[in-house]
Structure formats: C-alpha cells, structure tokens
C-alpha cells in the first residue's frame, strides 16, 4: 500500500531508508524488549518516593503539591514514559557530530539525498520498533497502576495529547539535529552534549513536574522547548491544562518546531559550507 502511494515520489527513498533501518533494529529485538520493560523499574522507586512525600504525618488524602494529588503524580510519571518515548532520540546528536568530525559525512554528501531526512528516517525507524515492543509491554504496566489513573481525559485532551506527542517527536529530532551540527564549528562537543542531556532531563519535567519549581523558574521553563518533550503531554492528559489554555500550549509548541526547523536548516547550510571550505 505504501509502495502504491510513495513509489516514484521523492519520499520513496526515505521510506526505504526507514524500512531498512527497521530491519536492522529488529536484529536487536531482545535488547529492545529488555530496554522497554526495565525502563519502568525507576517508576517503582519514583512511586515509593512520592508515596513517602505525600504520606507524611497529617496526610488525609486531600493534600496537593503544585495542584497535584498523589494519584496525579503517579499518572504524571507513567505518562512521562510515553512522552519521552516520542521525544528522546538517543545518540542522534552524538552520531551527527561524529559523522562531521571524522569525515564520515562525505559518504552522505556524494549521494543524491538529504542528510537531514536520512537521519530523521533512521531515528524514526528506531522509534517504530520501540513502539511496536511497547505495544505489548506498556498496557500491562498501566493495568498494574490503574488505581492511580483517576482522570478520564476529554476528547479535546486526547486530541491535544496526540498532537503534543507529535510536537515532542519533532522537537526531539530537530533540536538534536541542530545540536549535532555544532560539530561543524567545534571539534569536540561531547561534554557539551552531556550538559544538554542533563538539561533536557531536568527541563522536560522528566525528573520532576515543572510546576513544582519556584514560580520564577516555572514561568520561564514551561515555555521553553524542553517542556514539550515531556511536561506538556503529561499535564494535558492528566487534565491539568484548562481548555482555554490548550490553544496557547499547542501553538507555542508548533512555533518551537518551526523555529528549530528553520534554525537547523540554516545551521546545516552554513556548516556544510564551512566543512567544504576547511575540512579534509
């Protein structure tokens, strides 16, 4: 079916890249199953941690932190796994920087294709395999914690959630692509990449919900692109984004996608020019 629609269009080669990479990833399917299952282990410790925080003396089940109950908190962390499953693109920025630094980029530059789309398809394939495995491993885990999933999302929230996952994926791809291209200017960026990783982990709300941060930081952090890599999808699905705010949240996310797309494109063009001028 896909062949029917895409064959003969410029998109076809990228589809083949995607399917080839998917096959390669399948070679490591057991690695995936383990990865996807054991990824949830930290969830158990997180639940215990917040249990301890909430159930301190005087707890009567009505206390809130940043407007969130204990159940909200557990739901937040569970949904975070779904959101990060879309937005985290492991290894992408490092691989790009190595391609640039070690001159491996040459083999892509001589082919009639776009390196950006090549990379995107390569990563998307990885995500597809991940999600295929997750299809079997996520439901039982959500079933186990069903007592905490107390909010029933509205149709609007479901729709916004899916859009926010798409935003999460594209910010993940575009941001990491842009960071990877920094290697055109700086020889060694691995330390910097580590800093970026830690920042993403913190500012995406992966470590703790952003609304627990001091107000000054929150008002700034929630509109940063990283919030769209975790915090916003979670908040939308646990019903913490009022309907009248939804448009703004999604809109800013889409603006970030556009911003990174244009900046990345510009940096790539400048970088390749520089690479061709000084590289060897």
């Amino acid at each position, binding site marked *: 079916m896909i062949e029917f629609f895409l064959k003969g269009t410029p998109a076809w080669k990228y589809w083949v890249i995607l399917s080839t990479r998917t096959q390669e990833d399948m070679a490591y399917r057991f690695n995936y199953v383990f990865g996807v299952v054991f990824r949830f282990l930290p969830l158990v410790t997180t639940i215990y941690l917040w249990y301890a925080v909430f159930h301190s003396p005087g707890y009567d089940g009505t206390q809130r932190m940043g407007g969130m109950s204990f159940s909200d908190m557990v739901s937040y962390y569970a949904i975070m796994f779904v959101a990060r499953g879309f937005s985290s693109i492991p290894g992408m920025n490092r691989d790009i920087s190595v391609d640039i630094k070690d001159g491996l980029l040459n083999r892509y530059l*001589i082919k009639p294709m776009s390196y950006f789309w090549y990379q995107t398809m390569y990563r998307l394939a990885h995500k597809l395999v991940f999600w295929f495995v997750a299809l079997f491993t996520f439901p039982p885990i959500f079933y186990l914690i069903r007592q905490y999933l107390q909010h029933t999302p509205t149709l609007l929230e479901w729709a916004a959630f899916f859009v926010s996952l798409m935003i999460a994926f594209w910010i993940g791809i575009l941001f990491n692509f842009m960071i990877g291209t920094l290697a055109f200017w700086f020889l060694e960026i691995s330390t910097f990449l580590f800093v970026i990783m830690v920042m993403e982990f913190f500012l995406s709300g992966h470590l703790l919900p952003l609304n627990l941060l001091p107000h000054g930081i929150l008002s700034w952090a929630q509109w940063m692109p990283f919030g769209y890599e975790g915090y916003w999808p979670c908040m939308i699905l646990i019903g913490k984004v009022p309907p009248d705010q939804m448009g703004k949240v999604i809109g800013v996310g889409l603006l970030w996608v556009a911003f990174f797309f244009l900046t990345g494109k510009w940096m790539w063009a400048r970088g390749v020019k520089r690479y061709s001028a000084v590289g060897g």
Partner: protein
Amino acid sequence: MTTAFFYVRSLEIIRTGSYNNHPMPTIEVENLTKIYRVTKKKPGISGAIQAMFKREYSLVNAVQDVSFKIEEGELVGFLGPNGAGKTTTLKMLSGILFPTTGTATVLGFTPWERKNDYRKQFALVMGQKNQLWWDLPAQESLYLNKEIYGVSDADYKKVLDEMTEILQVKRLLGVMVRELSLGERMKFELIASLLHSPRVLFLDEPTIGLDVVAQKNIREFIKEYNRRTKTTIVLTSHYMNDIQALCDRVIIINHGKKFFDGGLNDIIGKFSASKLVTLTFENGGVPKEDLAKFGEVVEFEKLKAVLKVNREDVTKVSSQILGKWPVLDINIEEVPIEEVIQKVFVSAESKTS
C-alpha cells in the same frame, strides 16, 4: 513503452557522446588550489595551555595550481606519496570540498554545487569507509542504494546479476556484512557504488589493505569495467602495481603540484636516463673493474653481471662488450618503474624543500 525506448536511446546518445558535435572533456580542471588552515600547537603541556588562549594557524597547500583534462572513457591514475594531494583533488571533484581558487567541471557540472543531477552520475569509492549497513545482509544496502539513486527495477536486476557474477559474490548477498571478509566487503562496496551506472568513477585507494589475490581481482574488475562500459575512471593509489595494471595515463602529484602527466612508459623515458644490460658470460667470466668502464655495475656474480648504462650508449656499449668477451646471453631492459618513480619523488622533494 515508446517513451521508455526513447529514454534509453537518449541516454545512449548522451553516454556515447555521438550527439555532441563539440565534445567537451569529461573532466576539466583548471588551476585548482586548495589551502587548508591547520592549528599549530607547541609541544607539551605549556603548549596546550598557550593554545587555549591563542590559537596559531599555519597554512598547508594541499593542492596547488593543478590543471588537467580527462576525456570520456579514460582510465587515469593519480600517483603520489601519502599527503601528496591526490585524495584532496578527488574530494573536490566529488563536490565534498570547495577549492580555494580555480575551477573544475565534471560532465558539465561544477562538482561543489552538489546538484542531484550530478550526484546521480558519478560515484566515489573510498578505500574502507563503508556505506554498507553492518547488521544487515549486503543485499539490503544495495537495495537501499538502488532507491536512493532511483535505479529502475530492471536496470538494478541486470547490473546486480552481472556484477555479483563477475566478482563472484552472488552467494554472499544474504550474508550479514559484519561476517564478510575485507575483500568481500570491498567487492560489495564497489557494486553499491556502481548500481546507478555512473559515468564518472573516482576510486580512492581501492585495493588498500587487501591481500594480493583480492587486489588482483579488484584490479581486473576495474579494467574490464572501464573497457566494457566506457566509464571515465580516476584512480588513486600508491601501489605501483595498481597503476601499472590499469592505467595508460598517469598524473603524478607531489606536494600538491602536478609533476607529470602522460603515458606510463613516458615516465621511464623522461625520468630514467639509463637501461639495464644483463650479461651472461661463457667460461671464466670477466673482471669487475673491466666491466665498470662501460657503466655502473649493479649486480656481479661469477658468470653473470648487470650493468646500468646510459640510454643513448646502450647499443654502442653492447656491441663493444660482445666483441670483447665471449657472451652467452645479453638482455636489455628498462629500469623497473617503481625505482624510477621513487627517484622522481625523492628528487621532487629535494627540489621543493
């Protein structure tokens, strides 16, 4: 059907060039120069600290003022020691690098504009930088290349069948690339680069790291491919055997400068002033000192001697020797080309430095 037929015809016309009344060289390079800027660091830790605050650069002339023309169907060898500028030149012709100054056109395109129409018509094979996917059988990478280059199913099947047959790797198509030997990988590497039937092929050290048998296989394949398809091929190598077996024309580059451009045999004529005369004597032999009057004695045994004699004196010397001593056999040869080229490089070095 008809459209396909005309399409194939017109491709044929473009390839054979019979359509073009004023044939342009396939590759035309004029005053190509590439200067790199490299960072300099003084030795030791103090040098490293200094470099953190103040970077010092020096300029390296990788390629200097190189010009040449290559016609369709030629198989030209780039010869030169490591760091001579061979690869840099190929990179400019493949559009990976911009030159500092100078121009180049390949198939009418300026390579570094990296137009898709150009990229679909050439291939660059770089020694061991592989484009094959490690964890998949080679056929998957080949298929991927087919789609990237937009090769039709029929052409793909034809080329693939042919190539795997000639290179004897048909049975390996389904084997994981990681399990192939270096030689087998190189063969697939070549096939992957030739699927789109490029009109210009750049080979950078195609036999590097291979054993003698594999080297020979690859070499024969390149020769045959050039003969059959009339693909223009530029090849770099520092193995003299590669060049000798493949190329009628050689461009020697040293320290970024073109040093020689012409037939392989002309190198000997131009740079080697002498020939080797091998003499086998009848009983008794001849004293070494007497022989030394005729030329440099390179080898001396009891009944056999090798003399290095000036090119123009060879006939004269031979007849003198034949008249003077009882000679069983005489054999006149050129000095081995490797020796000549080595000398060329050494002399070029002393000239430039």
